[in-house]
């Protein structure tokens, strides 16, 4: 609540859309008409901005985490430092992180992207490393014994077999980032967080608030389904036996949720 007051600032003068819409005037629970008539001006652009924010953050996060995971896999002594740094980043509260970044990068999208990338690093890194480590030793031994070079083993055996774990990480990272990106509106007026802040500024305009929140949830859900479908294409062997709409990957992803503090302590 404190946060909201701080964000909204000043005395609140209810102004629900300023239209002749009765429902909106009365701040009804959800005014469908107001929603559709403001799709083009508010929700559509916000949704697109949100998707772009998340795509950029997860893509860059994935590239960095992937490189770090390969490094840690090949040279295990690098794993502890990487885990420490990414755990530290993961534990910084987002608002504090914005405060730290703004003096350097300003109230820009760059600030938001840096923060979002930092938050998905640990999730992605630990999943990729675990995926690579979980490749059965006998499979690797057979590959080596048949004359695959270390590089061929990585590309043809280790990475394909790590795909399910990598996707589990991608799914958690994506869903987390979609939810986290709404806070980005605190820094720039972009994404689905913007209508939420706007709704708060208007004195808790329910329709705008609920619509933006619902879109964020829907986006997370659709993104997750798309990733599951993509995994089915990339690694058909992993889903041949079980039809996996949600269960296994999510369960595993949750189980794999990093334990930042203990990880730091271990290190």
């Amino acid at each position, binding site marked *: 609540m404190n946060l909201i007051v701080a964000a909204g600032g000043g005395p609140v003068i209810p102004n629900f859309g300023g239209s002749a819409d009765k429902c909106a005037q009365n701040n009804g629970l959800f005014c469908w008409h107001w929603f559709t008539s403001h799709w083009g001006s508010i929700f559509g652009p916000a949704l697109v901005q949100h998707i772009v924010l998340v795509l950029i953050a997860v893509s860059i996060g994935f590239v960095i985490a992937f490189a770090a995971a390969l490094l840690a896999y090949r040279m295990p002594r690098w794993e502890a430092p990487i885990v420490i740094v990414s755990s530290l980043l993961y534990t910084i509260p987002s608002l504090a992180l914005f405060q730290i970044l703004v003096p350097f990068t300003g109230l820009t999208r760059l600030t938001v992207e840096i923060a979002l990338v930092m938050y998905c690093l640990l999730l992605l890194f630990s999943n990729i490393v675990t995926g690579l480590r979980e490749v059965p030793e006998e499979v690797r031994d057979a590959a080596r014994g048949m004359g695959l070079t270390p590089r*061929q083993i990585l590309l043809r055996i280790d990475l394909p077999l790590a795909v399910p774990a990598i996707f589990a990480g991608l799914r958690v990272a994506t869903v987390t980032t979609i939810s986290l990106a709404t806070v980005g509106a605190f820094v720039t007026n972009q994404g689905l967080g913007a209508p939420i802040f706007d709704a708060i500024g208007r004195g808790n305009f329910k329709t705008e608030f609920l619509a933006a929140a619902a879109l964020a949830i829907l986006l997370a859900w659709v993104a997750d389904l798309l990733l599951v479908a993509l995994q089915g294409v990339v690694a058909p062997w992993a889903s041949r036996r079980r039809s996996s709409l949600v269960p296994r990957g999510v369960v595993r992803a949750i189980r794999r949720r990093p334990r930042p503090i203990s990880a730091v302590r271990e290190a």
Partner: protein
Amino acid sequence: METEATAKSSNPREHARAAASLEFRDVSKRYPGNDEPALRDLSFEVAAGEICVLVGPSGCGKTTAMRMVNRMIDITEGDILLDGESVRSRPPAELRRHIGYVIQQIGLFPHVSVGDNIATVPRLLGWDRRRVEARVDELLELISLPSETRERYPAEISGGQRQRVGVARALAADPPLMLMDEPFGAIDPITRERLQNEFLRLQEDIRKTIVFVTHDIDEAIKMGDRIAIMREGGVLVQYDTPDRILADPKDEFVAQFVGLDRGLKRLALSKLGDLSLQAAECLPDGTPVRGHADHHRVVFVDDRRHPVGRLGEDGEPEPVGPVGKPDTSLRDALSLIMSDANRPLVVVDADGAVAGLARVDVIASALAVGNGGHAAREDAAR
């Protein structure tokens, strides 16, 4: 046959590229920080086309020895020669592509189909697509797997089938040498026996040189042309044919390892066909016989000389009882005789006609051949 096959390398059925001979020459393995070597001066030779079984208790270094052949483990001292050429003269990956490799856990690639698993090494060697396809078809047939298995993932076939695919994958590029580390170890006894027999039949065709690791002496006796018995600390104790090892264990360790029933195990190595049979007196069914001197020798036969009955002690005809075939092992024959009140066993030939009789004392005397040596000396010393 082998020379003909090697000459025609364009033929995808390029079978039995001449098997390679293998020689361990004073091979030792030491791990850093460990004073005791894992292998000590291992020396033996395996002739081309033979199965050499490395057997011994765990910790004897048998797997280490095997894995040094394809350089999965580095040699500390000595050398391993493949057709007279050191395995160290080639880069490891290149060397391994020409050596079949089968391990107990099989290690099929779970993310590619059975067909792609089998095609692994041929593709690494750059065979063209049609040759690879043809080879996969041929191997699936060789291991009697239905062709639709080709598109399945390893998780979708049975354990026995997976094991066969593992062998097919190792054979794919027709390597002159195969390494097999307890290949049938993780399989139920019935399937194991079937796979062993299948593999021995296969080996009669392909005649590869094979290094086979097991901890099971019975499997060693069954599979091996030669057996290397090793003991803890990586010492080779005895290297000989199964028959010689059973007949003449070099020391107490080997004798204990092969077991007190080594006589019976040895019997299992010979077949009735190898035995000189006692002549049977074949009489047409229904012939009246009175007061025959040796009623055991009388066998009543039909017009094709198939046994239909025998003469009892009381002079009356009796059912024929168990019948042995040329490929019945002496061990099984002995068991049949003992479960039939020690009557000599009627042995028929491949057509089912009476070939003769096998008597307990004749079977027992087969054991006497080659016996003695170390064991007799040790017995005398005791």
